[in-house]
């Protein structure tokens, strides 16, 4: 076939390449009407989580602010009031602000957080018309009493955007236990309970391990069981992000 490999033939081969395109299936979707499923680990708007008993997870340690490459997080911690504690520790996040004009959604704050207080939802369709709206304050970031993120007027939440708010596998173990390093574990969360490991991410027993760990942790801390509980649904294969047409 070497006689087909000359300039004249190759010239028309180029036309064949473009000529084939109209009959190929389109990968484009009509975006506003038709939306692709988000990737499992989509980085979107942040939320501040609470424990199943309603306590805030944030302890005001400012690690997220320290690690933030865009310097968009501003945190000030304060001592918990002894009578009405906000978080189950000494201190809590007194001020928590994220400037979404600067945030690059790198998820490093989520990795840095020792208590999984800050995670990212899958919401990316939010736009504001002034700078004040762009700076999310703590009251806007903290989930409400049902464990769902607060819906602000300029945000376009779709079903599923608020679930499994972050699929990030933590590099370090929660609570700093060295023997749990590399195992995806989430502490109990208001509205969702304990989340199992994601499908295909680690060994299938990790979820049970996480549940056991969480129950043990609650027994130790004497925390009251509240919320959905440990039997949260495991993400299925069909829920995975499929590149290409939908």
């Amino acid at each position, binding site marked *: 076939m070497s006689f087909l490999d000359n300039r004249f033939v190759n010239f028309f081969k*180029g*036309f064949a*390449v*473009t*000529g084939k*395109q*109209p009959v*190929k299936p*389109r*990968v*484009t979707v*009509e975006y506003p009407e038709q939306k692709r499923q988000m990737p499992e680990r989509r980085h979107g708007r942040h939320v501040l989580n609470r424990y199943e008993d309603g306590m805030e997870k944030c302890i005001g340690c400012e690690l997220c602010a320290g690690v933030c490459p865009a310097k968009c997080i501003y945190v000030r911690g304060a001592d918990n009031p002894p009578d009405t504690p906000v978080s189950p520790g000494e201190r809590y996040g007194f001020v928590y602000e994220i400037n979404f004009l600067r945030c690059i959604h790198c998820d490093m704050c989520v990795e840095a957080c020792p208590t999984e207080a800050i995670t990212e939802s899958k919401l990316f369709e939010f736009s504001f018309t002034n700078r004040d709206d762009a700076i999310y304050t703590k009251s806007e970031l903290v989930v409400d009493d049902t464990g769902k993120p607060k819906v602000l007027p300029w945000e376009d939440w779709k079903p599923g955007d608020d679930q499994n708010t972050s699929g990030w596998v933590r590099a370090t173990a929660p609570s700093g236990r060295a023997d749990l390093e590399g195992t995806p574990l989430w502490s109990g969360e208001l509205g969702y309970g304990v989340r199992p490991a994601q499908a295909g991410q680690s060994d299938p027993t990790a979820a049970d391990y996480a549940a056991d760990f969480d129950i043990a942790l609650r027994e130790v801390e004497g925390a009251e069981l509240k919320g959905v509980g440990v039997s949260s649904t495991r993400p299925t294969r069909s829920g995975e992000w499929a590149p290409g047409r939908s």
Partner: protein
Amino acid sequence: MTASPLLGSVVAGARLAAAHMVGPGVPTPGARGPYTGDPIFNHGMDLVVWIFVVVKVVLAFAIVMVSVLFMVMFERKVVAALGNRPGPNRAGPDGWLQSLADGIKLFFKETLVPEHADRFVYRLAPYLSLVPVFVAFSIVPVGGTISIGSYTTRLQLADPPWGILVMLMASGISVYGVMLAGWSSGSKYPLIGAVRASAQMISYEAALGLTVATVVVLSGSLHTSAIVAAQHGGFLYHWNIFRAFGAPAAIFFIAITAEMARPPFDLVEAEEELAGGFNLEYSSIGFALFYLAEYAALVINSAIFTTLFLGGPDGPRIAGASVGPLWFVIKVLVLLYVYVWIRATLPRLRYDQLMDLGWKRLIPGSLAMLLIVVGARINWRWGLAALSGSLFAFILLTRAIEVAQSRQEEGSQFSELEAP
């Protein structure tokens, strides 16, 4: 040495061709009486004839305007499809009113005139490039005749004795529009773009004229209606694209693409180099008119290609009815698709490649094809002589180009050494 027999064959060929050109149904001037024009003028000019003419003018204008709106959208849709995209689909049904929306937007924008612009020429230039394009459409026979009452008229606005030369005139004058637009803007980049454009258009004008001459020799008339009539009688094989051995059609197609500065010859508007080309400073109506002229030229040049090489409205009857205009539109649409396909496929040529193609390939090629066609019209001996002469000239030319290039390369080495 070889030039004189070749030149002799041109002269002899032209003389003999004029004497011997008789084909079936070819209206030849002289031998069979004067060529009769549009039958509507046979009974003299009365009011109805005037109305006919005015209506035809308005219709031709409207057809070109609507075809431009269609063409802009057609190109965007097809180039999108060739790139596996849906294309614009927001304005109107499936986006087909997008070009109308763009046009309305452009006409409501402010007209800005640069400070150093020559105001009169700056305003004149868009019309200089637009009007010739519309004039060129007037000679295109869309197909057959139409009878209303006792009046019969052709579906063709004008059929002047100089016929196809109107098209060459129009493309020649369009260069003025581009040139003056770039010059009168009083800005650097439009000027460079305009110089490029005019150099390019003039370079390809010669090849264009020679291929048109080939068709004229084949048909024996400058009348576009006669050119179409000469291709009539037999689907496909009687068309000029085959009667002229294919090459003139290809050369005409390439030359007309370069003439219109369409991709891959759109150096005039090379954004990476010129920031927009000769119409950089234009806004609002001026810009819209240039845009209009560009796409009108595309449609009309496709129509002229159809007339010259694809038999115009020639085609088989459908259900016993003569559907010339339908065949005409189908052929033009196929050509337009090919233009868009080329745009979607080929990368832009470099300027020296553009000039090489024009001067070293197309002009000698079209000249050789003219000689061969003229020779073949006389008899096979002349055709063989022209063919062999052309081949010999082609070999000489190729060798000459090689030598010139090698010398140029040597020269450039020395100039690099001498450069400070």
